[in-house]
């Protein structure tokens, strides 16, 4: 039996959190997470950002949207990214290990709401990928039917649709003026999605890059 855990019995080492995507070597750790520390300078880059904290918020649109973000938009706030994923649902992405803090922050902000509000840590349910670079749009267009032009999907917008047949939330989140997309999908199809994007990006010379210093 293989034992990749670095410990002999039940209570010595620290637990290791893993993304569903086999990390491109070399690897390192960020908080509890094992992450890739590869570095690519390619014009098109794909990174596994699964170690980010993810918090799901549900509530009545009229009450919550003004406090968080409009549907189909994404908003940066205090080192986290609030995404309007549906008329009554939001996803907050934050640096690794921050989900409790973010949940508390959101819960307290929404305390005055009269309708039912739910805040759940969904860090473990999703993968997050970041596709960046000049040809990111053309690569994503191969596997996503949404109009990605600046007119239809400008920086700061978001949508939920299929990417490579996997239902995903996509956020246009440019980095330093470089087109970039964050793609959040069900964890169990993470490896599939990652491979599909790497394949789509091949003609543009895609490079696999690691978990960045600046997480979000």
């Amino acid at each position, binding site marked *: 039996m293989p*034992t990749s855990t670095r410990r002999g019995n039940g209570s010595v080492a620290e637990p290791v*959190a893993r993304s569903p995507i086999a990390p491109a070597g070399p690897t390192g750790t960020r908080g509890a997470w094992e992450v890739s520390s590869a570095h690519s300078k390619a014009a098109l880059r794909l990174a596994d950002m699964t170690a980010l904290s993810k918090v*799901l918020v549900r509530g009545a649109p009229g009450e919550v949207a003004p406090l968080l973000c409009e549907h189909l938009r994404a908003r940066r706030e205090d080192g986290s990214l609030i995404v309007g994923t549906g008329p009554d649902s939001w996803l907050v992405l934050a640096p690794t290990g921050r989900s409790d803090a973010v949940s508390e922050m959101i819960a307290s902000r929404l305390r005055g709401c009269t309708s*039912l509000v739910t805040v759940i840590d969904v860090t*473990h*349910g999703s993968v997050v990928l970041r596709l960046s670079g000049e040809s990111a749009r053309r690569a994503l267009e191969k596997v996503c039917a949404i109009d990605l032009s600046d007119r239809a999907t400008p920086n700061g917008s978001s949508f939920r649709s299929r990417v490579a047949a*996997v239902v995903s939330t996509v956020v246009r989140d440019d980095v330093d003026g470089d087109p970039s997309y964050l793609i959040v999908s069900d*964890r169990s*199809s993470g490896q599939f999605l990652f491979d599909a994007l790497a394949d789509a990006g091949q003609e543009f010379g895609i490079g696999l890059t690691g978990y960045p210093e600046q997480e979000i």
Partner: protein
Amino acid sequence: MIRIGGRVVAGPTRRIGPQPGEVIDRSRSLTFYWNGASRAAYDGDTISSALAAAGDRVLSRSFKYHRPRGILTATFHDPGCLVQVDDEPNVRASHRQVAAGMDVRALHSWPSLRFDVGAANQAVGPFLSAGFYYKTFIKPQRLWPAYERVLQRFAAGGRVSASSPHGDYDKRFAHPDVLVAGGGPAGMAAAIAAAEAGAEVMLVEEEHELGGHLRYGDEVALSRLQELRAAVAAHEQIEVLTNSAVTGRYDDNWVAVLQRSMPHVTERLVKARAKSVVVAVGLIERPYVFEGNDLPGVMLSSAVSRLVNLYAVRPGERAVVFTGNQSGEAAAAALERAGAEVAAVVDARRGGALLRARGRGGVTEVETGDGARVECDLLVTAAGWTAPTLLVNMTGVKPRYCDRAARFVPGDDLPSDVFATGGLVGDGDVDLLVEHGRATGLRAARRALETLDGHGPLTALPRLEPADHPALFRSRTHGFVDLSEDVSSKDLVSAAQEGYDSVELVKRYTTATMGPSQGKLETINTVAVLAESTGRTVAETGTTVWRPPHVPISLGALAGRNLEPVRYSPMQPWHEAVRARPIVAGQWIRPEHYGDPASEVRNVRENVGLIDVTPLGKLDLRGPDVPRLLNFLYVNKWSKLDIGSVRYGVMCGEDGVVADDGVTGHLGPDHYFMSTTSSGASAIYEWIENWLQTTFTDWSVHVTEMTSAFASINVAGPNSRELLRRLVDDVDLGPDAFKYMQVRQGTIAGVANCLMWRIGFTGELSYEVHVPAAFGLYVWEALMAAGADLGVGPFGLEAQRIMRLEKGHFIVGQDTDGLTQAFTAGLDWLVKLDKEDFAGRPELVWQSERSDELRLVGLQPTDPTVVPPEASQIVSGANEIEGRVTSSRFSPTLGRSICLGIVSADLAHAGTVVTVKQPDGTRVTARVMEEHAHFDPAGERLRG
């Protein structure tokens, strides 16, 4: 070697000097193979232009009569120019460019193109008339398979090979404001005007470069071509796709574009959602029907112009030109420039007529209407145009016949987002085509951008109408109407006489228009001949239905990358490392077993085992109305479930049919956690959302899918408590503190926020633990390590199936089917009809009042070594079906075979012995048991 009437008139090459518009690169010679012999070509040559340059006249044999065929149209639609290229069947030789080393072979010829034994069919032609096979081979019926094999030998087309690689194909989406189909002058002009108006444009051209008919036109045409190309190139907003075809325009301007010869993939399907579509596909020159019209050397005028002007090939030495329009004159001029002799021009506009062409392997003589006979090796026809209206007619618009011009036009009342321009609409000089194209492009852009003004005034749409043209369909003689299908005008006449006299019936009876060019060359003549023989007009007769694709499209391109997502649990790397046997379960790939399921069962019963049950559906339910929701969804009661407890439940559809089962636990105030079957997970989620969003809209409940958020591990077996105790500090696992059907939240192996339920499908003392997914592998490995001395081992799906059968738990969808209502499944103990309402209640009330229903029962074969295969039928008498075995296994625990089965009500009593007919035909007996459970029916082990 070229012969005319027995005289050799030319050497082997027909390549002429450089032409102003030629597309070949004389600095790059290539060699390829034609039926095994080598041939020279220039880069830019099509297969057929290279063969024509080499003096090859016969490119194929027709499939029915095996008549020799050569170049007719020199376009994609050339019916006699389908060839096999390497392992690719049915390649269009007049479109595909030569690549070095290509192995090109002719179709339908055996043993060789010149000596073809199938040609004997020509002699029996009169008996192979349309539909002959419906009239013969009727008796004796038993000989039909033999006849059929003979017919199959004459099937058309090339060959595929079982060892061909799949090839490299992919797809892409696009969202142009304006998509222009066809890159002739009108299409280019439309693209330019649309781009100038601010639209993003996709311009798609079937040929290898832009230009349409200008490419093979005169100097004026060529200079206009340069201007237009330059203007297109100057616009960054125009994406040009050449060697690409718009294959269809579907509802809501969903446009399919087949993109060929890409650097990265063989072919790519572009799926474009265009705000406006401009159809500028031009016109197709149509063949003329007369005796001998299929002989090699009979060519359309545009074919001649193309061969001379684009490929610098002289198509013949001595020509007769039959013409009804300027295109015939252009061809005659091209021939003279190419050094061929034009022996006669027969002008239909001045009463000239064409009677027949004669020759064996090709034309050697032409007989004209006045009886004159002219020796020649080339007969050029310019009989008029066909508008390829498919892309417009796909919208539902019907083509309209324009009598004056003797052609069908796209029809009226186009959808507001589809525009037509160019030759498709009418005839005119380049200026008019460009002007019309521009005006149309602008309109398309305005529609796309939803701007009413700006970018200058809307130029008037110039009048562009089909020009008058003589109605030239068929001569006084009969000839081929459909060369690909070997259908003659005589066949059509006779089909009409037999009553197949509507255009749709005549098509199906004779197969005219059903071949590779799908009527683009054939429909008009088919309709005209039918009209003539029924006494109706062409307009009354109408066309057949135009259907996509515009040009055939490979299965590879349509499939693309074939994205079929799969799902893995976090423990997948571990399963792979120990080579678990994978099983595909919906999207999930799971371990079926790790070598020996029976020993996995024994290990669970004796020690402790771990199974990865991550695919179990998991839903987080929150809100004050969750109990009402549960009461409605499940057939049993949910009002009183304490925090820290879980309960089993079954859900039925509104038809009372068992839909899913699982357990739900009460985690905290207004907080529940539901599990569903793996296969039911997404359907149940959708079903619940449906109730909440459409019926119980005022209930306060939030449902969150958590299936992938937790790695789920069932720790089962007598040692499971001890194993967990070693890794869990913050939960009291003692039998009294944490009872059967309870749930706790705690930390396992240092991983916080784990859920532990004390439940079990296996019938053992067991804990289902749900671990935050990223730690799943870590915890699994920790359990394995910590339990080494307890005999811990993994078990797979198969061992679990055996154990649940030992316990008599049914599996929804296996032990039940699409009609199994709750009482049939034996759920009398669970269904609470005294609840006021729940999904499916009315049907279950009525089912409870019936007594004749099938029942699910436990069964044990009389012979304990016999394991009747699942789906074996339970029978009475000779062949009366009384039920079936739904689950069946050999129980390693009991050392005997055990089953579940569905039987009719009168056999459902304990002790009844039923007869089971196995697939091999043998009959065995089995006893109906008191309980579904074969093992530990009282459940002492799991409560322990």
